[in-house]
């Protein structure tokens, strides 16, 4: 799931919510969807909770260094 993009995760979560709300799945199927949805919601939250943002600068092809922002 780590390769999953936030956008795709959110879209899938929306799909699951709709499906559960419509109640068109069998109950056991619904439970599987629910489980997946909980995982997706957790993944989305984790993505949003990344605390430390990296700010880097590309000096040259393949050469990336941390970038210090000079506060004016």
């Amino acid at each position, binding site marked *: 799931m780590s390769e999953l993009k936030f956008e795709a995760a959110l879209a899938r979560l929306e799909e699951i919510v709709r499906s559960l709300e419509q109640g068109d799945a069998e109950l056991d199927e619904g439970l599987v969807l629910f489980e997946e*949805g909980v995982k997706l919601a957790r993944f989305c939250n984790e993505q949003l909770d990344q*605390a430390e943002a990296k700010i880097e600068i590309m000096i040259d092809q393949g050469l990336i260094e941390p970038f210090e922002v000079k506060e004016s």
Partner: protein
Amino acid sequence: MVALHPLSVSELTNQIKAALTQPALQSVAVQGEVSNFLHHRSGHMYFSLKDTHSRIKAVMFRGRNQRLSFTPKNGDTLIALGSVGVYEPNGEYQLYVDMLFPQGIGDLHLAFEDLKAKLEAEGLFDPGRKRSLPLLPRRVGVITSPSGAALRDILHVLRRRHPGVNVLLFPALVQGEEAPESLVRALSLAQNTDVDVLIIGRGGGSFEELAAFNDEGLARAIAQSDIPVVSACGHETDFTLADFVADCRAPTPSAAAELVVPLREELLAAVTSMRNRMVSALRRRIESERRYLGQLQHSPVLARPEHMFRQRRQRLDELWTSLGRFQRSALVLRRGKLAAAVGKLESLSPLNTLARGYSVCQNERGEIVRQAKQVSLGELVYLTLQEGSLSCLVEERKP
């Protein structure tokens, strides 16, 4: 009275023409506003130049006007270089234009308009080419000057909206002759990184300062980028070519940052809301299934299974009863048929005939006698009556 040596029209025209060949009129620069502009099918351009008081007809032949980097239009104030001459068939003098220069709008603007038209014609600005931006980029690429205010603004807004977004800066010159090449190079470097979206821009500036963002090479590089590009050239009103060709145009670098990263709180709220909806949907579902189960448990069949047998027994009784009814009615029917048959049989019986006074005559061999010649004189015949019988001797016979 003038001596009557009249000139022909052609002769007069030739004299006028000669008068106009003075050097001062053979190399003129004249400024005026274009009107009645016509780019004829032949390729020649016909128009007038005018100011508030005067007007002169002008023509610029195809061979000359093909070198123009812009297309004149009515209302443009232009400087025309050329010569004055006479168009004999109409008796008109006019300006034969060798070259046109714009006046009032600078060359840079003209080149910009031309290039813009060209790129637009190539379809580089088509809305269909524009890609949508990712909802939440994991890494934002920023192409700008590392020391500019634009970068500070962008980083500030990104942090405010979502502290967890990574930024990769591609330093580039944003002003001066080397800026276009520098920007194109940064754009090309970015293609091989994992950034989800690119912001390319600089803080505000005059038209001349933004020139790098009107560069054809840069416009094409933006169009070819595999990564969605947001342009941010720091100008509210004027659009650069980079703006036209980018997937998304932001009026300022700060606005670009806002476009690129959604508010973290909004996304968190969205995820939480979906989670809640999911939980309540499942809860509703389970409750509804439970209700249904309850209904099933209370259904007569499960609650009082003996009912099922009672019902069936009752049905069996009903069937039994109706079977008996059927049998009885069949018997009545048969009885009726028998009586009818008996009646019919009785009507055919000879006894009835005898009762009406007829008798049956038989000979000694028991044969029924129907004709007199069947018996001989002196033979005995037997008559059967309704009651009893007679033996009779035949005394006479009639045929």
